[in-house]
């Protein structure tokens, strides 16, 4: 394995560059956002090699980027960002991943920690009942015939039209919860079969719903703009994606792209990077199917939001309006988007792949909701269940350097099997209890796999993003209640 300390050239305290000479076939340099301390962990795995591999993609512009939560993925590293020209570049399903539009949404309440502590056990128990979670969990939405196609076309808008939430929610969802160009004709029947019973479910693995309390506010003006008034205020964070439908779309198109690579004579160092020109039949079909999966995920988070509101209303005996249950924002962190960016002074239409990375558009950008346009787009960065989550905002620097992207979470340091080898469910449960965190999980294994010890400290990740200027911290919140698959 390469000696990464030698290969990566330090630019400043937060940026390390990988020369295109590192590997023959790289079209652009790599750039990793990290710090001296985390660099050791980064170098232990093959993530930098993956940054180099992504630089092979035809039409890639700028640099093959890795956000501070970089870790070893498959094909792309997790935390990878790559932009390709739509004119002559490619789209790669591996640059989005299996869980298409895995993402996070954050709700605010007007409750304080002291309001919620006495009822937290009951609230978590009720949420666990009302929001299906776990492997193979089925939702309570019964889609008939080809109703799923409406979900795939309309996303969160479908959910709101069906009564799951408020029209205002769409305003505070990336892409208003409906990615353009979705065409269900490009989604296989198998994907629809997998997705139909799973709509409105949290799933398993690292997906969760958390009740959090604001612990620190770094930017009062921005926090106020997002409706967060004070330390102690209760927030709700939901993390899930497109479930089996997204996995199947990715799988179907990896096969299509495997053939396309040969057809178009594309040379790649890893089969998982398989791709096709954005403008080709294969590329367009994938983007149309990916948009469907993205819309499914937004509909999924929207339905879960609705049941969360209903459950809180029941437990507190007040309406969602009285509880101030408003959506702060919803971000996608596994997605490819067609966006316009300035590269070397030229405006270019690009396909921006964000694989475990969050869009981070600055104040003034037209894609930021009007109500937030003075401060910038909220960036939601969950940590592991025993530590903290952060809210940040996008910056002009991100727009200039990372195609408007920043980190998406903590990033694993320990594999799932290593976590299971080194920790017991009881230890993890006791550690959570001692921090005052109430939790309900369907599987003991997922409790251990998702323990704090398995992750980088999200604070370190957020500090690097803040230090590098690709997002700016707004507030920190701490979980007090968690449900997981």
């Amino acid at each position: 394995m390469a000696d990464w300390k030698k290969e990566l050239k330090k630019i400043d305290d937060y940026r390390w560059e990988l020369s295109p000479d590192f590997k023959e076939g790289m079209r652009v340099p790599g750039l990793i956002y990290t710090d001296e301390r985390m660099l050791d962990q980064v170098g232990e795995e093959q993530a930098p090699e993956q940054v180099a591999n992504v630089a092979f993609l035809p039409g890639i512009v700028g640099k093959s980027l890795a956000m501070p939560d970089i870790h070893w993925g498959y094909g792309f590293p997790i935390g990878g960002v790559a932009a390709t020209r739509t004119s002559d570049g490619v789209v790669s399903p591996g640059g989005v991943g299996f869980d298409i539009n895995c993402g996070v949404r954050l709700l605010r309440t007007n409750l304080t920690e002291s309001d919620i502590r006495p009822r937290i056990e009951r609230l978590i128990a009720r949420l666990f009942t009302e929001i299906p979670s776990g492997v193979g969990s089925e939702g309570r939405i019964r889609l008939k015939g080809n109703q799923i196609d409406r979900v795939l076309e309309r996303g969160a808008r479908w959910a709101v039209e069906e009564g799951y939430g408020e029209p205002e929610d769409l305003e505070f969802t990336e892409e208003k919860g409906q990615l353009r160009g979705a065409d269900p004709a490009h989604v296989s029947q198998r994907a629809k079969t997998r997705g139909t019973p799973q709509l409105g479910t949290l799933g398993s693995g690292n997906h969760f719903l958390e009740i959090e309390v604001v612990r620190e506010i770094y930017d009062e003006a921005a926090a106020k703009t997002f409706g967060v008034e004070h330390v102690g205020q209760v927030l709700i964070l939901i993390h899930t994606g497109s479930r089996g439908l997204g996995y199947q779309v990715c799988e179907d198109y990896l096969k299509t792209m495997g053939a396309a690579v040969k057809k178009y004579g594309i040379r790649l160092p890893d089969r998982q990077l398989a791709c096709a020109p954005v403008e080709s039949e294969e590329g367009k079909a994938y983007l149309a199917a990916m948009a469907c999966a993205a819309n499914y995920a937004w509909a999924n988070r929207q339905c879960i939001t609705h049941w969360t509101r209903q459950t809180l209303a029941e437990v507190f005996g007040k309406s969602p309006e009285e509880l101030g249950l408003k959506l702060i924002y919803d971000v996608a962190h596994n997605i490819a988007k067609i966006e316009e960016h300035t590269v070397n002074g030229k405006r270019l239409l690009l396909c921006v792949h964000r694989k475990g990375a969050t869009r981070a558009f600055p104040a003034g950008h037209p894609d930021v909701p009007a109500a937030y346009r003075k401060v910038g787009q909220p960036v939601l960065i969950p940590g592991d269940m025993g530590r903290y989550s952060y809210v940040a905002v996008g910056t002009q620097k991100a727009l200039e350097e990372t195609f408007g992207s920043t980190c998406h979470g903590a990033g694993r340091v320990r594999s799932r099997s290593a976590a299971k080898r080194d920790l017991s469910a009881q230890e993890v449960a006791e550690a959570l209890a001692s921090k005052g965190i109430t939790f309900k999980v369907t599987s003991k294994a997922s409790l251990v796999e998702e323990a704090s010890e398995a992750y980088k400290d999200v604070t370190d990740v957020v500090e690097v993003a803040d230090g590098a200027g690709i997002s700016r911290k707004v507030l920190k919140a701490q979980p007090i209640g968690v449900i997981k698959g």
Partner: protein
Amino acid sequence: MPFHFCYNAYAMQGYEFIDHTADAGIVAHGKTLEEVFVNAARGMTSLMVDPESISERARREIVAEGADTEELLVAWLNEILYLFDAEGMLFRRFEIEHLNGRSIRGTAYGEKADPSRHEIKAQVKAATYHQLKIERDGDGFHGRVILDL
């Protein structure tokens, strides 16, 4: 390569796991390619559930196609995952009736998942093409596949 193959007790069962930070990998061994495919399926199942808890009450035919043997291994494993996700099927035993470089047909024996008897340890989202490899070795073949958990 950073993988540390441990040819110990695991080798006896025909597969072993390799650590991958975000996910998990399997190396399956066999005297024949058919054995490699069966062992990869068994290894993947054991990540999801204790195979001892599965009874052979039902069977499903598994058919898959691929551009080459490696793609076929991914397609075979993904077919098994599809049957779990779409029908809740868990399998304990696999047989292969036909395998050439482009297509595979086999039978899997098991039952529908029942939460009271099967603790699902992890959801495998998919088998990936990342560092996918099937190679000949002294004893026959081995195949490596990384799974997205």
